[in-house]
């Protein structure tokens, strides 16, 4: 009941946001100098050829028609055809999304697994050496130019030390695992191919570390701040006065409450992950959405950009929905009375 | 007593909608203030006591216009600013001023004292900065602040001094009525004494009328001429402060006074404190509001009770507003009227 109260407006919101995004991207795409027809037909195309391509793309129709067609296609899940790859944008996204999700998931897990304990320790030992170290790490993470950090790591671990691969998802000589989920780690295990599995793991190390590092900073900082907030709450004082064990106070009483405001932040961090992923993928030649969208932007492949933007914003709203629900479950006050 | 009332509140009701519907609609209401009538004559102090959540603050905020009233009238000098507009509205409105409970939060931390004190005048407009400052200096002196304080900011003051600033601000427009919402409950007793003395002095000098809310019965007894006891948004008993507080008539007033900590009597036994929690003000009870908690409840208590003059044995005729000023003591309990308590 209360869940529905949160979910239903969110779904209305989802449509609203997607429609808004569609309008905005459509407008931008029409402001851009650059003729999609010329991109497809080639620079030297004759006027005739251009016309025919334009007709093909529906670009000869009035703008309003183009928009209604675009929106109606969108509702059918058709995001149009990429000018650059000449494939359906939906198909492209389906191809590249798993790579990004695999990278994103691993780095998010890394960031959380390291960031939360670090933040907690930092808050508990506020102003102590652990805190200084944790704050330094977190501020470095937040301030690190992702692309540069990626380059430095590639230089160090791939070019100089030769201990980790610097690009792609899997070694050259190893056949790709059969696509089931698109996650190499899972697919290779499903096939029982350990060579592919370990190769994928090795390829994941550097990019996921780079990506995790930035989020680690954000998470550590947030957890530290909300832990500090929570630790000076009256109920912690009550718990201490009742003689509860330090461990119990920190983990059962404080952390739980500190995580609640952090959930929202995690939602935002997921959004940022996308941004970081774009840059990380570019440097590591990771065949994911990031590489796809950067190339698309550089070539002004507008159907691709629009498709990506729409999908990303749907993802954003969905993540926020999940965050809201998680928030609701974490905070009894919201859960019980809505 | 023939003076026309300075403030007269008639039939004032305040309901707060509780948003609960899917799309923000209200499903029910909080009945914070229920048909309150009261009058204050010039230079008089009226105290309002009652337990937490009974609607005291809402009542005064409705009077001063901070919350929307659902029905009823508030006349100051016979005029209701609710119906006025623009400058006129401001003028009527500024005949009363309010001093809040927490002096810290009622002063904008970023403004210097002289600006704080003259804010009502600044809002009203028409005075130059120098004039405002000069007026601020006068006002500051009258509440016992030193001139060098004028350029400081509120955080540089103690709680008592801040409350002085708030009082200075409240009297800056020469109002006739000051509303005091627990003006000293955030302060220590020694500071409370200073503020109370100041308020009494100002009343003597400026002929101010006060409407004061307080938890502290002895303070009300000391400070106010008359007192009204509120329960669940209603006035259940009213009359001269000393009379009401020394010999309460309404069962609720009795319980309330019994539980007030005092140097004079020991801690009451649990039986006497059997007051429970304030009942739900979302669904108003029928009949006497206090019936469920009342140890004197009997037949007849399920009928709505009205506020009638104490000692008026007929007990059926409600008082007209104009009568009330003349009638010193009234109570909303048929058993008290009947002398059963």
């Amino acid at each position, binding site marked *: 009941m209360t869940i529905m109260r949160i979910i239903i407006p969110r779904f209305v919101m989802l449509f609203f946001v997607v429609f808004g995004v569609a309008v905005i991207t459509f407008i931008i795409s029409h402001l851009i100098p*650059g003729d999609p027809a010329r991109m497809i*037909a080639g620079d030297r195309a*004759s006027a005739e*050829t251009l016309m025919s391509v334009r007709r093909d793309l529906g670009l000869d129709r009035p703008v309003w028609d183009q928009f209604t067609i675009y929106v109606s296609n969108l509702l059918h899940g058709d995001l149009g055809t990429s000018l650059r790859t000449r*494939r359906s944008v939906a198909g492209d996204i389906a191809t590249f999304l798993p790579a990004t999700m695999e990278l994103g998931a691993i780095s998010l897990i890394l960031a959380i697994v390291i960031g939360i304990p670090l933040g907690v320790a930092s808050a508990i030992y506020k102003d102590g050496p652990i805190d200084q170290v944790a704050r330094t790490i977190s501020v470095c993470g937040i301030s690190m130019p992702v692309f540069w950090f990626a380059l430095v790591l590639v230089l160090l671990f791939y*070019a100089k030390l030769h201990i980790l691969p610097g690009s792609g998802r899997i070694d050259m*000589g190893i056949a*790709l695992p059969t696509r089931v989920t698109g996650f190499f780690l899972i697919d290779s295990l499903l096939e029982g191919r350990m060579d592919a599995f370990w190769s994928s793991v090795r390829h994941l190390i550097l990019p996921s570390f780079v990506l995790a590092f930035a989020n680690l900073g954000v998470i550590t900082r947030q957890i530290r701040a909300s832990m500090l907030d929570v630790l000076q709450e009256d109920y912690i004082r009550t718990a201490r006065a009742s003689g509860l064990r330090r461990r119990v106070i920190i983990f059962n009483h404080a952390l739980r409450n500190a995580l609640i405001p952090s959930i929202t932040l995690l939602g935002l961090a997921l959004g940022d992950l996308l941004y970081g992923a774009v840059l990380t993928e570019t440097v590591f030649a990771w065949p994911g959405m990031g590489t796809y969208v950067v*190339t698309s932007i550089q070539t002004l492949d507008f159907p691709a950009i629009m498709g990506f933007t729409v999908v990303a914003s749907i993802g954003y709203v969905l993540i926020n929905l999940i965050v809201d629900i998680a928030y609701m479950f974490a905070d009894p006050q919201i859960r019980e009375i809505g | 007593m023939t003076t026309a009332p300075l403030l007269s509140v008639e039939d004032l009701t305040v309901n707060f909608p509780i948003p609960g519907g899917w799309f923000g609609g209200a499903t029910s209401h909080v009945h914070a203030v229920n048909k309150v009538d009261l009058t204050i004559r010039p230079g008089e102090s009226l105290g309002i006591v009652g337990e937490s959540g009974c609607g005291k603050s809402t009542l005064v905020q409705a009077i001063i216009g901070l919350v929307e009233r659902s029905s009823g009238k508030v006349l100051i000098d016979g005029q209701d600013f609710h119906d006025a507009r623009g400058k006129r509205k401001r003028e009527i409105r500024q005949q009363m001023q309010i001093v809040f409970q927490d002096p810290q939060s009622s002063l904008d931390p970023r403004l210097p004292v002289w600006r704080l004190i003259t804010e009502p005048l600044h809002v009203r407009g028409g005075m130059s900065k120098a004039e405002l400052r000069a007026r601020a200096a006068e006002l500051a002196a009258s509440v016992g602040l030193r001139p060098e304080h004028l350029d400081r900011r509120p955080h540089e003051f103690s709680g008592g001094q801040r409350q002085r600033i708030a009082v200075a601000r409240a009297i800056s427009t020469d109002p006739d009525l000051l509303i005091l919402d627990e003006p000293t409950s955030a302060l220590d007793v020694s500071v409370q004494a200073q503020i109370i003395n100041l308020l009494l002095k100002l009343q003597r000098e400026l002929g101010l009328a006060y409407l004061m809310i307080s938890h502290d019965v002895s303070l009300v007894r000391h400070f106010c001429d008359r007192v009204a006891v509120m329960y669940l948004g209603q006035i259940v008993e009213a009359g001269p402060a000393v009379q009401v507080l020394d010999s309460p008539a309404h069962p609720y007033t009795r319980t309330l006074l019994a539980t007030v900590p005092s140097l004079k009597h020991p801690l009451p036994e649990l039986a006497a404190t059997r007051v429970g929690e304030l009942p739900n003000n979302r669904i108003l009870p029928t009949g006497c509001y206090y019936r469920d908690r009342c140890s004197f409840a009997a037949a007849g208590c399920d009928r709505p009770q009205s506020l009638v003059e104490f000692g008026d044995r007929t007990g059926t005729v409600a008082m007209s507003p104009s009568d009330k000023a003349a009638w010193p003591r009234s109570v909303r309990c048929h058993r008290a009227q009947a002398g059963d308590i």
Partner: protein
Amino acid sequence: AWAASDVLVLSRAEDAPTADPGVEISNSGYTFIYAAYEHLVAYKGATTDVVPELAESWSVDDTNTVWTFKLAKGHKFDDGTDVDAAAVKFSFDRAMKLKAGPSDAFPVLKEVQVVDPGTVKFILSSQFAPFLSTMAVSGAAIINPKVMEHEKDGDMAKAWLAEHTAGSGAYKITSWERNQSVVLDRNEHYSGPTPALKQIVVRTVGEISARRLQLVNGDADIIEQVPVDQAAALKGDSNIVVESNPSLYVNYIYMNNKRPPLDDVRVRQAISYAVDYKGIVDGIMQGQAEQMRGAVPDGMWGHDPNGFQYSYDAEKAKALLKEAGKSDIHLTYTFSQADTAWEPVGLALQANLADIGIKLDLQAVADTTKREMAASGNYDLAPGAWTPDFADPYMFMNYWFDPERMGGPGNRAFYNNPKVAGLVREAASIIDQPKREQLYLEAQKLSTQDAPYLYLMQKNDIFARRAVVKGYVYNPMLIQVYNFATMSKSE
């Protein structure tokens, strides 16, 4: 991780858009098209001459508008069916119907007729000198008509052919993982000798540094798009051969002939004199280029080895400007990052032009935007890169100088000299090569004087391979295209 000796790994910066001969217009796609399809004719070795491939012989009628090809026997598509006249007709009909970029190579093709399974006839609407040469372009690849089984929504199997092949070439695509790798395996039905390389893997690796490390570590056998600085660094490694071959790829700069002050020939000449060509070639290109001499590059017939070449002469440039009476000139150089040389070239130009009192602003835009601006004449100076689609000076002369082709199609300087236009049009309408060459030389002489473009340099095609890769033959018409069938890897 060394690849097996019969597998060749090629590493390049970006994934090819498609492998559909009817659609693809980029060299990265040609790599697959030339590996998987055959054409009626092919370039011979390292030259731009054509020799029979699917066609065993051909003839042309007196009007020069009807070409008849006799098909050789024994060529089979990768499903085992024979390559016949119907397939040829299907392939060209498809290209013309798709009317995408490649169809522009056949501007006068009216009809293709099947005479008998071994004979096919091309009917042209008018005489077109480079016709035979166009039969060797990527878009003229012969496709198995059976692909129509994969047709969807009347797309002429476009979607399917984008990532699959259906030709009679030595290889066929067996897997395509977007932005990762394309795998080519041998076509069992290939008519030629069995290639030594069993499998070709084409990897996408965006960073040049990463590609280079792959090559050095033996993870890749060939890496493409090697900038000159990297090439220089790789030269020291004995396991690696840097292939640097003179190409027909030219870098030049469009000067907008319509816009003042560039509409004044003296201003254009002054600019042409102001540029430190040698500095650019040696400094920016590390010597891996040569200054252009006229429009037709060295290596293509029609090139004039004695033609006029502007050289760095600031004094002369200043004098010309003075003569033109122009001062306080303010120009913009609109470029994109599509070619890594464009920015440093712009910087060099900025410095050079400043010397003669012309202020040059650099404006970096997306490549698509740059193209659009060039096509619509909305620029002052803009760099361009040009490679010929087929081996004929027509690709330069008629595209660059014919006022009919102003804008996108080729004449991006909006150059209009009726005399030059007449010469190039005449050259295109006859097929007598010596005569045509004559006309083109004449046209070059005139146009170079007009300085419509700033002729910068003809770049070397640079890629690097491991020394174990043998048998590669460079053809300037086939950049990024490899003769995989006759290459091998050996220690």
